């Protein structure tokens, strides 16, 4: 605990320092932020008692940054007391220093010692990042050096081990990256052309006598980004070298497979119209900093960033059937070797003054996404499979059409209509039985009342043929929100599984609460019953069991 006294003492130093501001000496700059998310779980007569330990749980983060000329430092203290909120990664427990770093940064050179966040390309080969809602902080603890000899060139090298709870995982990580701005080098005026090359190695020695086993697993990536006028395109390829196969967390010492990924993107954008299409094919592409962790359900120890490429929806009922990417090779419980598919987005603005555009224009957003398993011939007993065709679409995992229409009717009235049609193959996405066809319809209106006051109402309905007990058949939902000013808002929301054939499961999942914002401080408080299911942020999902209770979030920065 002495560590905190030290931090407290350090914090007091600027008090003394800053009290002599007249001297105009540069003592550097201290800034930071606090975030606290707490839950108090209660028994619920409808959905059952809270049966875990610690009904009060709280996740707290304190981050301090210090900058002095070109030097920088940070420390993040995390406290999960008396326990982390439900279904967080169990290694987030107690109070300790989560991340820290010191470094130097100039326009040409940058070095960090300690924990750092890094991303090569799109992250398909390496990305370390933080998301406090999901309980992910996979920053790398080690050294990261960047050198930019000219504006068009950047080279990075890193070494370290990945954060795992308050510790680090077993594998050592090596990374090299080069970003080469070809258009600047060749002085292309109108064309943008960038090349990126990366290497990531993970070295983890295991006690395996099989001669095929190598502690070091290598991955290479190459990518090109291109823009010309209204068109842009990018292509990325990753090859992951042969590595020992692990199944449900157990290493199968005599099975070795390599992996690969292709990511292709194409887009067109001009005023009033934007089109973007993405294709991705991944085969055995889950890449962990520690092989033992390959079956963890908390999204921990991933070296690469391979989220579901689908649209993230905005409403309660459009977030019941959410796709999760399927990068892994598994023979058990069902054979999967990866995924293939893509999505298309179209954004269109119907101009002001036309019949459909009206006085203020009408904004449309369309998305289509489809994902399938890779086609392949496999032998479950031997745990072997034959390499699949490049464009081999196997079992369909997920397909979705969605359209949002946003319309402003007058200075005071505006509305959004959203339609989402989903096919969801629960057998492959969740490893459970069932295929689901569902259509959600959502309408919302906002009315401005002047002086910063406004009211927003939303109704929604989900037509579903799902038979999974806790979410079967149809749902209805509604939200009412009142904003007293830009600082103070209250809301009440409910989604109701009224169509569930099991009457005991016709449950209202309601929440009401409010939020207050002033400057950099935000307080949110609510009470409600939460549906068991996936909480997703940016295509990565965390499972949360059904629960009821109070929640309080505070955040501020300074």
């Amino acid at each position, binding site marked *: *605990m002495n560590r*905190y006294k030290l931090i*407290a003492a350090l*914090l*007091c130093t*600027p008090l003394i320092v*800053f*009290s002599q501001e007249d001297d105009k000496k540069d003592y550097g*700059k*201290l*800034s*930071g932020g606090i*975030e606290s998310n707490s839950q108090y779980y209660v028994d619920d007569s409808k959905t059952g008692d809270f049966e875990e330990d610690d009904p009060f749980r709280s996740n707290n983060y*304190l981050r301090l*940054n210090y900058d002095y000329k070109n030097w920088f430092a940070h420390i993040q*203290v995390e*406290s999960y007391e008396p326990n982390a909120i439900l279904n967080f990664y169990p290694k987030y427990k107690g*109070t300790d220093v989560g991340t820290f770093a010191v470094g130097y*940064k100039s*326009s040409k050179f940058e070095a960090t010692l300690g924990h750092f*966040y890094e*991303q090569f*390309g799109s*992250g*398909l080969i390496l990305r370390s990042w933080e998301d406090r809602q999901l309980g992910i902080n996979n920053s790398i603890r080690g050294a990261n050096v960047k050198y930019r000899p000219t*504006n068009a060139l950047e080279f990075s090298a890193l070494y370290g081990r990945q954060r795992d709870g308050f510790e680090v995982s077993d594998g050592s990580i090596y990374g090299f990256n080069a970003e080469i701005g070809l258009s600047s080098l060749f002085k292309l005026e109108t064309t*943008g052309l960038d090349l990126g090359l990366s290497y990531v190695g993970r070295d983890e020695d295991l006690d395996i006598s099989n001669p095929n086993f190598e502690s070091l697993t290598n991955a290479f990536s190459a990518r090109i980004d291109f823009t010309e006028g209204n068109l*842009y395109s990018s292509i990325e390829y990753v090859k992951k070298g042969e590595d020992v196969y692990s199944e449900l967390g157990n290493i199968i010492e005599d099975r070795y497979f390599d992996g690969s990924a292709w990511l292709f993107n194409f*887009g*067109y*954008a001009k005023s*009033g119209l*934007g089109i*973007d299409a993405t294709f991705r094919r991944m085969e055995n592409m889950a890449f962990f900093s520690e092989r033992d962790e390959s079956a963890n359900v908390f999204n921990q120890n991933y070296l690469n*960033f391979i989220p579901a*490429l689908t649209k*993230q929806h905005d409403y309660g009922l459009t977030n019941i059937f959410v796709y999760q990417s399927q990068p892994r090779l598994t023979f058990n419980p069902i054979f999967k070797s990866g995924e293939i598919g893509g999505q298309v*987005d*179209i954004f*269109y*603005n119907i101009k002001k003054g036309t019949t459909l555009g009206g006085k203020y224009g009408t*904004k449309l*957003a369309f998305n289509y996404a489809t994902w399938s398993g890779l086609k392949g011939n496999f032998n479950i007993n031997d745990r072997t499979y034959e390499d699949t065709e490049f464009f081999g679409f196997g079992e369909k995992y997920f397909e979705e059409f969605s359209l949002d229409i946003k319309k402003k009717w007058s200075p005071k009235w*505006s509305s959004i209509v959203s339609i989402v049609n989903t096919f969801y193959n629960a057998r492959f996405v969740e490893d459970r039985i069932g295929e689901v066809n569902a259509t959600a319809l959502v309408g919302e209106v906002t009315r*401005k009342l002047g002086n*910063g*006051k*406004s009211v927003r109402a939303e109704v929604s309905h989900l037509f579903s043929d799902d038979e999974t007990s806790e979410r079967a058949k149809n749902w209805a939902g509604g939200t009412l929100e009142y*904003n007293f000013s*830009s600082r103070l*808002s209250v809301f009440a929301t409910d989604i109701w599984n009224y169509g569930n054939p099991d009457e005991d499961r016709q449950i209202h999942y309601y929440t009401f609460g409010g*939020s207050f*914002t002033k*400057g*950099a401080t*935000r307080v949110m408080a609510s009470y409600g019953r939460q549906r068991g299911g996936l909480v997703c942020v*940016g295509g990565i999902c965390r499972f949360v069991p059904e629960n009821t209770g109070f929640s309080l979030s505070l955040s*501020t*920065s*300074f």
Partner: protein
Amino acid sequence: MRTLITLLLTLTISTTTLAQDVLPKMQIETLKGANINLEDISSNDQLVVVSLWATWCVPCKNELDAINDVYDDWVEETNVKLYAVSVDDSRTVKRVKPLVSGKGWEFDILLDTNSDLKRKLNAPTIPLTLLVKNNKILYRHSGYTPGSEDELYEKIKEFSK
């Protein structure tokens, strides 16, 4: 736990004398792929609005839509400039350009793909709206409710003088 509380109390006291009142020194990518220095955007008394948003954030898009409707007037009357910094990660960052074009937004777009700026501003939630001049943060507000762009404009008028 008690030491933690002490720590938080100390912090509360220390915050009264400190503030995150400047934009961090860092390079940030434009939508066209160039890198610019963040401190340059508000130099020479240029008043800028910096708004952190993402393609998946509804209130953020509502705020920028609302500002876009009146942006021409704002620029004409106060010479303010808006930089909308997308914190979309690599999953959704490809959607930024078509969305911005599709919506016809006229302001400058910057990309903070691995949340470096968001982290340095200690912003757990978006939208986050800042008013900045000569790299000094003059006003900070998080969240968006319909009509709060009017309040922002009052601040813009105040600081543009």
